[in-house]
């Protein structure tokens, strides 16, 4: 199965329990990835756990996220009866569209005669702005879900984390983003292709970081 090759789990443990532990960890990884809709976002991923040292590594190569969706791609927009009329194709985007219209034109100018349509009392010149409104940006949601997934998979006690992201062209050694505001993190990660997390309950050792580097190269990073 293709998915088996894309996500690999390895546990280093003396004794016979190793395979069982890998199977359990694998189950957790699959549940988390599918709950957060990340199956298509991740190209390849490897998880490594050493329960004795202890330390935990996730390395991943990401696929570029789907491009942002504009309003004109999900709705018909036309000028009728001196007002702008929208006929939306999919209900999922309605909350986002209505929020944008209310914010920009005021609730009193926006009518919703039925579930999938909206009428805005505003000049025809506004059509362009409305058509190009971004109703959904997968990359924004993707980032949040990715970090959430990594936090859910990593053992809870492993609170000391070294995170690393890079575009494939640049040197990995120089790029680490240990503490950054979420908004900055987001701009940096757009276009990021590969990453690793090293986590432990003890301070991160250099050997572990080197191990993460090796794993990243193994799965096809540069």
């Amino acid at each position: 199965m293709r998915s088996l090759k894309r996500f690999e789990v390895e546990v280093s443990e003396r004794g016979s329990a190793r395979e069982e532990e890998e199977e359990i960890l694998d189950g957790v990884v699959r549940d988390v990835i599918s709950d957060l809709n990340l199956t298509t976002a991740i190209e390849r991923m490897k998880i490594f756990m050493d329960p004795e040292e202890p330390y935990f590594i996730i390395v991943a190569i990401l696929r570029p996220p789907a491009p942002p969706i504009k309003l004109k791609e999900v709705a018909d927009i036309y000028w009728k009866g001196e007002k702008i009329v929208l006929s939306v194709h999919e209900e999922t985007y309605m909350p986002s569209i209505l929020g944008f219209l209310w914010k920009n034109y005021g609730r009193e100018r926006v009518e919703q005669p039925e579930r999938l349509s909206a009428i805005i009392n505003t000049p025809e010149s506004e059509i362009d702005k409305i058509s190009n409104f971004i109703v959904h940006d997968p990359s924004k949601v993707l980032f949040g879900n990715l970090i959430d997934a990594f936090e859910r998979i990593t053992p809870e006690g492993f609170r000391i984390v070294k995170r690393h992201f890079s575009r494939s062209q640049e040197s990995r050694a120089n790029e680490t983003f240990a503490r950054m505001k979420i908004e900055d993190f987001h701009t940096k990660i757009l276009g990021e292709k590969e990453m690793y997390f090293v986590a432990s309950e003890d301070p991160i050792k250099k050997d572990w970081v080197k191990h993460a580097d090796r794993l990243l190269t193994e799965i096809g990073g540069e």
Partner: protein
Amino acid sequence: MFYPVTYNGGVYRHDEILELVEDIGGYLIQKNEMQTEVLLNLFVPKEDFGLLEAKSKELKGELKYAPLAGTDVVLVLPSLAFHHMPHPSCDIAEYLRREGSSTTMVGLARGVGKRIAQIKEEEKRLIEEHDVALFVMGTFESCLLEKEKLFRDIKIPVVVTGGPSKLDLRYADEYIGGIGRVSHRLKKEKEIKKLDEMVEAVIRCVEKRRVEATNDPLTVEPPRIMYEIRNQIPEINEVLSPVPINLQIDGLRIKLPYEEYRSDVEEIKFDEGYKLREMVKIRRSLFRRSILLKVMPRSETGFTI
């Protein structure tokens, strides 16, 4: 000695069961009415169980031995975060409740990690208020072995669940492997089998305690105390909780404030002429606004009723 059973039958004429139970000196612990069916948790004297069996057959009801009825199990988790809740802990708790047990979930304040994991004295004492502790642990062998420190000196029986299918734990009474960390509801056949194993392990711990009690029986049986509380402290009927009195193997927990009701509880009278304070140790429970009663054995009081 009391025999814990559940009766499952029709609503029609089920009052005859209740009357018979009262006549033979048994107690109703809990009643669940579901449209035309009724589920009763009962404690009946072992000697007269045959009478109840006959009546149940007459009414075409189902009588089942329920060893977990009237027991108080605590599930201990390293924390209440996503890693441990809701799966598998809530699934385990639900399964135990279906067998008649009362369950509590405790998330330790500093239970995560391996070297850094700790348990407080207060947490230990809270756990020890119950009959059996079930520690829901994680996936990795070396981690579980180091985390034995969490339940090393817990004075009640300890059942531990974890990942590796076989593990030699020195301080656990029972170990159920193959169930580590789970992130989905336990539905598969293999998983239900694990839940059954857990219930059997808890039952073994409970039976062991009950057998030990035959050598030094309790001065008074907890279900009888529950009956007297309901009759002599009417405020208990105004408590909003669905289970205002939590039965345990050797005591009970009452959801009334300690300060206000301690003396009322002490003065509860029994037909034989004794008062409750001569037969139990009364303490403030570590649960909010609750009183904990632990019944003294015959060796301490010199009598049983």
